[in-house]
């Protein structure tokens, strides 16, 4: 009874503050819309089903903010908007991690084998990859291993000569033998990467699939890429799985993304084979090859580019507001152990603590040379984690019995706890001083905090190559590492681009 009452009360309070819990009821429409959108994007229906179940599970119960207002910016976001954004972020992470590497073996000549259905874009992509490799000071050799399609060899020759790159072909030689000879030829002629342009084939064409297996046996290519048309429908999965089963692919290349195909195959293939998307074909000419980045494609597959864009703005404003609130609170001396912990965690995200300490002039001064190493951080974390909320906010209430409890809970000595408190108090004093002016300009990145635009140049203070400190280390502002921020920024940019694109169409 009491629980229901208090729950009702909490909900009412949340609503007043513009917070809503995501529930089955308020997500119903969004769930349906997303399912339809993904199916229209040609994502495999099993993949869609699993995706929806998974994201729903993740989102239900989450309490989201529906409005934010900060510095004249007022934004609203419905539960649906939030859910769509959660889907977007999930898609981005499903399609990662990014691996656009091209493997090289110990031999002087490495090889890339391109396989796929008829007309998917293998020959064109062979030319694009050759151009891409040459720009990286490699010496590619194009290998015409499609003796079946009329003028396929000639097509590759024309492409080769337009790039001024050699093309290997031997009339009447079966592809497995031809590719083997091509590697020898590459070695003799000083090339370091052989690109096999094989004939298009159906995954169910057993004899032609065996030919590919024979090429693999005779050449052991370091890279086998399936070239897949972005317009492909539900069949993508069958084709990709069968090619992967027989050849153990290294990755995929999605072509013809310069049209309006949504490219749902990218998600299906990644989900069902676990192999990464490597490159994207963005046009017929040989310079139209891009290394894969999940953000743009995720937004394209999901649809709702406008909502995703709105949510990026929304989150940015929420972040800014929180950053300012945190900074203000800190400068007033209300620096709690929670802030301290957050601050340390944000530093941890950036890499080895000891490395960092050396590079930040202001920081080593703040910690009075105390050698804080990475183990130290783990210790601090465990101690703070063993404290009650009240203790974290008001460390002055710590007495001997509390210290004993904390030391037991964290598995640290009482001395460790006392040490930490000493250091924390020192830090807080410094913060207070900063609040009074004086040291303000010594805190890296502080001018990035809206509302505290002190005129100083952070790059002067930070060692070169440390842009990572702009936000996170600015005295516990918020534990958003700058690599996260960079990612978010790229996302926003892409969403904006997508929105523009959708307007143009």
């Amino acid at each position, binding site marked *: 009874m009491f629980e229901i009452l208090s729950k009702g009360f909490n909900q009412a309070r949340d609503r007043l503050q513009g917070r809503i819990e995501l529930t089955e009821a308020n997500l119903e429409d969004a769930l349906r819309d997303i399912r339809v959108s993904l199916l*229209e994007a040609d994502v495999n229906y099993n993949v869609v089903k699993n995706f929806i179940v998974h994201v729903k599970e993740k989102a239900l119960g989450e309490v989201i903010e529906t409005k934010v207002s900060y510095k004249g910016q007022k934004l609203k976001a419905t539960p649906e908007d939030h859910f769509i954004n959660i889907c977007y972020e999930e898609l981005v992470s499903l399609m990662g991690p990014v691996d656009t590497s091209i493997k090289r073996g110990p031999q002087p000549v490495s090889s890339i084998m391109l396989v796929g*259905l*008829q*007309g998917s874009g293998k020959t064109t992509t062979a030319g694009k990859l050759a151009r891409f490799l040459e720009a990286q000071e490699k010496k590619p050799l194009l290998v015409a291993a499609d003796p079946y399609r009329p003028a396929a060899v000639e097509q590759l020759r024309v492409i080769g000569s337009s790039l001024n790159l050699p093309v290997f072909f031997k009339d009447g030689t079966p592809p497995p033998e031809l590719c083997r000879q091509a590697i020898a030829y590459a070695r003799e002629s000083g090339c370091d990467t052989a690109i096999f342009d094989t004939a298009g084939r159906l*995954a169910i064409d057993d004899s032609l699939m065996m030919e590919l297996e024979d090429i693999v046996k005779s050449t052991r290519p370091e890279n086998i890429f399936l070239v897949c048309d972005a317009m492909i429908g*539900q069949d993508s999965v069958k084709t990709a799985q069968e090619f992967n089963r027989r050849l153990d692919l290294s990755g995929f290349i999605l072509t013809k993304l310069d049209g*309006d195909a949504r490219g749902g195959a990218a998600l299906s293939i990644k989900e069902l084979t676990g192999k990464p998307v490597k490159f994207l074909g963005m046009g*017929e000419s040989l310079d139209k090859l891009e290394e894969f980045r999940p953000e743009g494609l995720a937004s394209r597959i999901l649809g709702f580019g406008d909502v995703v864009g709105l949510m990026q703005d929304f989150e940015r404003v929420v972040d800014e507001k929180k950053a300012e609130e945190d900074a203000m609170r800190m400068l007033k001396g209300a620096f709690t152990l929670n802030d301290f912990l957050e601050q340390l965690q944000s530093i941890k995200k950036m890499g080895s603590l000891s490395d960092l300490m050396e590079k930040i002039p202001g920081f080593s001064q703040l910690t009075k040379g105390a050698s804080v190493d990475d183990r130290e951080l783990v210790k601090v974390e465990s101690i703070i984690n063993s404290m009650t909320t009240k203790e974290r906010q008001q460390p002055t209430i710590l007495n001997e019995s509390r210290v004993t409890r904390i030391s037991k809970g964290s598995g640290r000595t009482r001395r460790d706890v006392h040490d930490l408190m000493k250091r924390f108090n020192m830090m807080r004093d410094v913060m207070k001083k900063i609040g009074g002016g004086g040291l303000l300009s010594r805190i890296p990145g502080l001018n990035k905090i809206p509302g505290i635009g002190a005129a100083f140049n952070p790059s002067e203070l930070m060692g070169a190559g440390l842009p990572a400190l702009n936000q996170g280390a600015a005295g516990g502002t918020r534990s958003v590492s700058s690599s996260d921020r960079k990612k978010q920024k790229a996302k926003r940019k892409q969403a904006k681009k997508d929105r523009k694109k959708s307007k143009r169409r």
Partner: protein
Amino acid sequence: MEQKKERRGFFQRLKEGLSKTHTAIVRRIEEITAGKREISEDLLDQLEEALIGADIGIATIKTLMDSIRWKVQRKELEEAEKLKDALKTEILSMLAHGEKALLVDPARRPFVILTVGVNGTGKTTTIAKMAHLFKTQGHTVLLAAADTFRAAAIEQLEIWGHRAGCEVIKHASGADPSAVVFDALKAAQARGTDVLIIDTAGRLHTKITLMEEIKKVHRVISKEIAGAPHETLLVLDATTGQNAIAQAKIFKEALNISGIALTKLDGTAKGGVIVAICEELRLPVRFIGVGEKIDDVREFNARDFVDALFED
């Protein structure tokens, strides 16, 4: 009698071509309907999934399933075993406009066929197949190599032309496709050729300049011969998913497409998107492609298609 035998032969061949293709969906639907008598919501959901897997498309599936559900509600359809037949009938009615063979009209000489489509769908190969077919029907055929863009596209058509035994009118690579077409029209008229088939470069329907280029080719043809092209054939790839609908819509708007060739039906892709295209755009499927060889082409027969789709 003779004709019936021929029809069965064709049907067998179609099934042969499609058998690799369609066993999957057939099996699914068999699995779904076998051993279950009552039509439950669950069963209908599974059926819907099978249709999605065949690339039939959400909007079309909704129409199909609404109609099936309505029949179930009105107790016109009660047994699970009958679901398949009911579905077949529904799809068949959607394909009603889909079945109309491409007949060369001897009164219009040259009978001009303009072949268009996005990249890599099988335009050039389908042209070779049509040339071969028309030749065996006793027509004279001329080909125009108006794909002057893709590397070795002209050589590809020349090889096919040689195999089909017909001449190819060509310019150098990179030439204006309209100019090639103009020359080909003149040549066909001068020689009294029965059929002129024009190969064009693949173009995504979203590329405005390329769509303008093909419209210009179309204008050149109509200006030279009133009423031509007599067939503007859109070549669609059966492995393509929902994007095929956008392709068909936009090409139809730009060029007044009169027929479709659906290629690569010999694979595991089901080509279900054609149902929506026939239904929405009222376009006939003139040919289906069932392989890479010159005779791997069939006329589209809706009943055979649906039967082959649903039979073992």
